[in-house]
C-alpha cells in the first residue's frame, strides 16, 4: 500500500504531546490576548484537534493579521518554488505562543528613548546605534618564563630499537 499524503501525514512524533505533559493544557494559553501586528510562534498542541495548522507551519513565526472568537489569523512566509509567499492561516489559540523574537528590540527601543531623553536634558549628543564587537584590545602578558626548546641530535642506534 502506498504511503499516503494526508493532511496530518508524518506527524506521529511532531504532534505528539511531550513526555508526562498529556491531558488538560494549562489555562494561561487561553488567557493570553493577541493584538494585530504581534509576532507569534506557531506550535501545534496535539491535544486540541480543532484549528490545527498544517504541519508545515509548526515552528514558524508570523504576524497576527486577524483576531476572531477562538482563533488568530497569522501571516507566515512560505517558500513555494522560486519565491516566498505570505500565507495567511487561521490557527486556534492553543497552537500559538507569543514570540520573543521582537522582545529584545522592544526593550532596546524603550532604553534608547530613555537614553536620548537623558542626553537631551544634559545637552549631549549620543549615538544609540549598536556597534559590532571589534577586535580584542592588546594586553601585556605577566609572569611569563622563557623556555628554550632545541631539537636533540638523531641517535640511530637507540631510535631503531624496535623494528630493524
Amino acid at each position, binding site marked *: 500500500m502506498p504511503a499516503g499524503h494526508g493532511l496530518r501525514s508524518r506527524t506521529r512524533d511532531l504532534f505528539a504531546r511531550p513526555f*508526562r505533559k498529556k491531558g*488538560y493544557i494549562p489555562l494561561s494559553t487561553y*488567557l493570553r*490576548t493577541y493584538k494585530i501586528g504581534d509576532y507569534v510562534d506557531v506550535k501545534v498542541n496535539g491535544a486540541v484537534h480543532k484549528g490545527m495548522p498544517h504541519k508545515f507551519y509548526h515552528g514558524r513565526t508570523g504576524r497576527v493579521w486577524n*483576531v476572531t472568537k*477562538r*482563533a488568530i489569523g497569522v501571516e507566515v512566509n512560505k517558500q513555494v518554488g522560486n519565491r516566498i509567499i505570505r500565507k495567511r492561516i487561521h490557527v486556534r489559540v492553543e497552537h500559538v505562543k507569543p514570540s520573543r523574537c521582537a522582545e529584545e528590540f522592544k526593550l532596546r527601543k524603550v532604553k534608547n528613548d530613555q537614553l536620548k531623553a537623558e542626553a537631551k536634558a544634559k545637552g549631549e549628543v549620543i549615538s544609540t546605534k549598536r556597534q559590532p564587537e571589534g577586535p580584542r584590545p592588546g594586553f601585556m602578558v605577566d609572569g611569563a618564563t622563557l623556555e628554550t626548546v632545541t631539537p636533540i641530535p638523531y641517535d640511530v642506534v637507540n631510535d631503531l630499537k624496535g623494528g630493524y
Partner: protein
Amino acid sequence: AFVKAQKTKAYFKRFQVPFKRRREGKTDYRARIRLTNQDKNKYNTPKYRFVVRFSNKDITAQIISANITGDMVLATAYSHELPRYGLDVGLTNYAAAYCTGLLLGRRVLKLLEMDDEYQGNVEATGEDFSVEPTDTRRPFRALLDVGLIRTTTGNNVFGALKGALDAGLDIPHSDKRFAGFSKDSKQLDAEVHRNYIYGGHVAAYMRILMEDEPEKYQSHFSEYIKRGIEADNIESLYKKVHAAIRADPSAKKSEKAPPKQHKRFNLKKLTYEERKAKLIDRLHTLNAAAGVDSEDED
C-alpha cells in the same frame, strides 16, 4: 511471603503528576477552561464568574475574573456576615444561600454604582426572574461556577443563584434546578420555591419535631430556641434580613489584631547573595589558616 513490588521505579518514572489543584481535588479544569475562556476579539474584557462554594459551616459567594498571575476577586460575600443583618442560625441552608447570593449581588452593583438602576426582584416570589436591561447600562453579567458539587434539583447552590438573580445580576440560567421544579410536569412550582427561600422547609421540620419528638426538637434546634426563633416567625425573620441586606450591602472591614510573631524552629533559607558571601568568608578563613600553617611549615 514474597509480594511483588507494585509501584516499581519504572512506575514512578512514568507517572505524570496532575495539576496541583486537581491533586487537592478543588478545581475541575474541564469546567474552568470553558468558564474562563474569553473571545479573543474581546481582548482584555474580563469574564466574570459567580463562584459559590459551601463548607461545613459557611457559604462563600464571590465574583471572580481570571488572570494569568492569579484570579482577581471583584466582590465577595460570606454567610458568616449574615449575623450583621440579623440572621445568626442556619447559615448553610437554602434560605441562607439565597441571602448570601442576594448580599453579593447588591454589593457588586453598589461597587459598580448600578444599584439604583437594577433593583432586581425586591419581593422574593419563587418565580423565575431575569433582569431586564435598562436603556443606560447593560446589566452585570456573570457565569455560575458551582465547582465540584453535584447539580441536583434543589441544591443550595441554586438558592445562592436565585439570590444573585433577584439582586439584579444577569446570570444565564434555567429554572430546572431550583427547589420546587417537578420533573413530571417540567415546571417550576413558584410556591414551593418561595417556601424554600423563606425557610419554610425548616419551619415544617420544626413543626413535625415539636409534634412527634420534642426532645429531639430541643436538641436539634437549640440555637433557634435560644434566640426565640419559632416555626411561625421564620418567614418574617428572613424578610427582615432581605430588607436589611438591600438597605446596606457594603462590606465592612473586620478589625483584627496583626498576627503575633511565632518563634522560628527551623533555619531560614538564605538568599543567593548571603550564600555567596558565606562561601567567600569561608575561603578567606581557609586561606588565612592555610597561610599560617604553611608559614609554620616553612
